[in-house]
C-alpha cells in the first residue's frame, strides 16, 4: 500500500523586543545567570498583574501581514491553565479564539514551481521558564529568566507532504521572519522552536490518520530527520496491522530516535477563558495600515525584482536575497558599478566563501560597497588578477584597509611594463630551448608552459595577457 505523509508545523518565535511581553524585565537573557531577569509579574507572585508591551502587539501584526494573514481587529488574551514548574502562574497567557492573525500562507519552492502552505493562525503568548534536570541532586532546577519572553506561535495547515517540504517551509518562514527583524530566529538558542504534527494515510484517502506530535528538535535538519524517522515508524506500524497512538514524542538527536514524553501523557483540559487582567484590544484599519507601510520588501518580492531589475538568473538572485543584509549590500554596490552579474558573482562566490570560512554573517563584517566595487573594478581593469583579487578581499575583511592601500603596500599590482616583461620573456626563452623547438615545430601547447615559467619568475604579478602577447610576438618575429 502506498502512504501519503501529512505534516503540519507549529513554530514558536521569540520576539526580540527590549522587554518581556507583560513586564519591564529585559528580554535578552540568553546566557544570563539564573533568575536575574525576573520581577513579581514574570515570577507570578501573588498580586502581580500583566500589562501588554505595545511593541509585541505591533510585531505580531507585522508577522501576520508578512504571512499574508487577516489581522483581527478585535484581539484579546486568554488563560491556558495547566501545571508545570516552568509556568509560575499555573496558567499561560495566550490567545484562544481571537488571535492576532489568521488565514495566511507561505510559498515554498517545489520541483514544478511553487507550493502554497496555508497558515492557520498566528497568536501571541508568553514563554515559560527553563527546567534543568539534575541527576546528582535528584531534583529539577527552575530558571524563570525566559518566563514572559514574547512569543508568536505560527500554526500551519497540514499542507506539507514530505519531510523536505517541512524543511523548505521552515527555511522560507525563517527567511521572511528575519526580514521583518522581529526575531533572530536562532533555533540553537531557542528563539525559533518547531513542533511537528505528523500522520500518514493511504494514498487517495481524504480523512487524516492519527497524528503524533514531535518535539525537541533543535535544527531544521533535525526536524527533517525526526519527521523521516516518524513517518517510517508509523508506516511500519500500519503495515504490520497496528494502530498509531496519538501522543507526544521527544526527538533524541544523539540516538536518532523518538520516545514518548511521559509528562504529557495524561489528557489535557486547558480550561481556556478570557484573561480578566488584560482589557481587549481593538485595531483600526489605519493602525494596521501603519504597520503595513513599515514592512520591508519581503524576500520573494525582492527575488522577483532582482531578476527583473538586474537581469540576474534565479540561482544568483535567490542566494542574494537569502540574507537581507547581503541583498541590501548588493544594491548599494549596483549603484556604484554597472555590471550586476559581476557583483553577484563576487558576492555569491568569494564573499560567501569568506563568510563560511569565518562562520560569520554578513552583518557582522564591515565591508563597504565602495571597497567592494573598487576591488571588482581593479580586477576587471586587469590591475590585479582574479586570484590576487580574492586575496585582497581576505585582507580587506581582516584589516579594514582600503583596496588601494593593500595593492600598494603588498605590491600586488600586475606588471604591465613592456620592458620588464620582455626581459623576463627573453630569460625564459633562453633557459628553455627544448620548448622553443617544439613550438617552432608547430606544437603550440608549449606556449602555455613558457607563460607559466615567466609568471613564476615574476611571482604571479605579470599581466598574463600582456605576457602572452609578447611571447607570441617573439615567435612571429623569428
Amino acid at each position: 500500500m502506498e502512504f501519503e505523509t501529512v505534516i503540519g508545523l507549529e513554530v514558536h518565535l521569540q520576539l526580540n523586543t527590549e522587554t518581556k511581553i507583560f513586564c519591564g524585565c529585559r528580554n535578552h537573557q540568553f546566557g544570563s545567570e539564573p533568575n536575574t531577569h525576573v520581577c513579581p509579574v514574570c515570577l507570578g507572585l501573588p498580586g502581580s498583574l500583566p500589562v501588554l508591551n505595545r511593541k509585541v502587539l505591533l510585531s505580531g501584526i507585522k508577522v501576520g501581514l508578512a504571512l499574508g494573514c487577516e489581522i483581527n481587529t478585535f484581539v484579546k488574551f486568554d488563560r491556558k491553565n495547566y501545571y508545570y514548574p516552568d509556568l509560575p502562574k499555573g496558567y499561560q497567557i495566550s490567545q484562544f479564539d481571537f488571535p492576532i492573525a489568521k488565514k495566511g500562507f507561505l510559498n515554498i519552492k517545489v520541483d514544478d514551481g511553487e507550493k502554497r502552505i496555508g497558515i492557520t493562525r498566528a497568536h501571541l503568548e508568553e514563554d515559560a521558564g527553563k527546567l534543568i534536570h539534575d541527576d546528582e541532586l535528584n531534583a529539577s532546577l527552575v530558571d524563570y529568566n525566559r518566563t514572559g519572553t514574547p512569543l508568536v506561535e505560527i500554526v500551519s495547515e497540514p499542507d506539507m507532504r514530505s519531510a523536505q517540504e517541512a524543511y523548505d517551509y521552515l527555511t522560507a518562514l525563517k527567511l521572511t521572519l528575519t526580514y521583518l527583524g522581529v526575531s533572530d530566529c536562532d533555533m540553537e538558542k531557542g528563539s525559533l522552536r518547531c513542533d511537528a504534527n505528523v500522520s500518514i494515510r493511504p494514498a487517495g484517502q481524504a480523512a487524516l490518520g492519527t497524528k503524533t506530535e514531535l518535539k525537541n528538535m533543535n535544527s531544521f535538519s533535525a526536524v527533517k530527520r525526526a519527521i523521516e524517522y516518524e513517518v517510517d515508524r508509523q508506516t511500519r506500524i500500519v503495515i504490520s496491522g497496528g494502530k498509531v497512538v496519538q501522543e507526544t514524542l521527544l526527538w533524541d538527536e544523539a540516538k536518532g530516535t523518538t520516545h514518548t514524553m511521559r509528562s504529557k501523557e495524561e489528557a489535557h483540559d486547558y480550561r481556556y477563558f478570557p484573561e480578566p487582567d488584560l482589557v481587549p484590544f481593538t485595531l483600526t484599519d489605519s493602525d494596521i495600515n501603519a504597520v503595513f507601510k513599515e514592512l520591508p520588501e519581503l524576500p520573494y518580492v525582492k527575488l522577483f525584482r532582482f531578476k527583473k531589475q538586474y537581469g540576474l538568473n534565479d540561482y544568483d538572485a535567490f542566494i542574494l536575497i537569502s540574507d537581507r543584509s547581503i541583498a541590501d549590500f548588493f544594491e548599494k554596490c549596483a549603484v556604484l558599478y554597472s555590471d550586476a552579474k559581476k557583483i553577484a558573482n563576487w558576492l555569491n562566490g568569494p564573499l560567501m566563501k569568506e563568510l563560511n570560512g569565518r562562520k560569520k554573517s554578513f552583518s557582522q563584517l564591515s565591508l563597504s560597497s565602495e571597497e567592494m566595487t573598487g576591488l571588482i573594478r581593479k580586477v576587471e581593469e586587469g590591475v590585479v588578477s582574479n586570484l590576487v583579487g580574492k586575496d585582497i578581499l581576505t585582507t580587506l575583511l581582516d584589516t579594514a584597509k582600503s583596496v588601494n592601500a593593500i595593492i600598494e603596500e603588498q605590491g600586488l599590482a600586475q606588471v604591465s611594463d613592456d620592458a620588464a616583461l620582455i626581459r623576463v620573456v627573453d630569460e625564459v626563452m633562453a633557459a628553455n630551448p627544448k620548448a622553443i623547438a617544439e613550438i617552432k615545430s608547430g606544437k603550440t601547447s608549449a606556449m602555455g608552459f613558457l607563460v607559466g615559467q615567466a609568471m613564476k619568475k615574476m611571482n604571479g604579478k605579470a599581466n598574463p595577457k600582456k605576457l602572452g602577447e609578447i611571447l607570441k610576438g617573439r615567435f612571429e618575429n623569428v
Partner: protein
Amino acid sequence: MINKETVNYVGALARLHIDPQNADRFAKNLEDILHYVEKLNTLDVSSVKPTSHVLDVENVFREDTVIPSLSQDKAMGFAVEHHKGFYKVAKVIE
C-alpha cells in the same frame, strides 16, 4: 450528577488531592451548588453577548522600556528551596 469520580477528576485537574473520606461530602456540596445555579438555564441568553470585562476600556499598553528586575538574592529570598540561584523542585520526568 456529581459523584466521587467527578470530584477526583476535578481534583486531579486542579492538582488537589481529595482525601477519600471527604470525597462524598465535596460531591454533595458541588451537587447542591450546581443544582442551585441551574436557575440560569431558565433564561434565554441566545442573543446576549457575554461580559468578560465590566469596564468599557480597551487598548491599555506599556511601552517597551526596561524596568530594573529583582536581584537573584531577592528572588531566592522567598524560595521554598533553592540551589545556586535556581528554584529547586522534585525531579520532573519528561
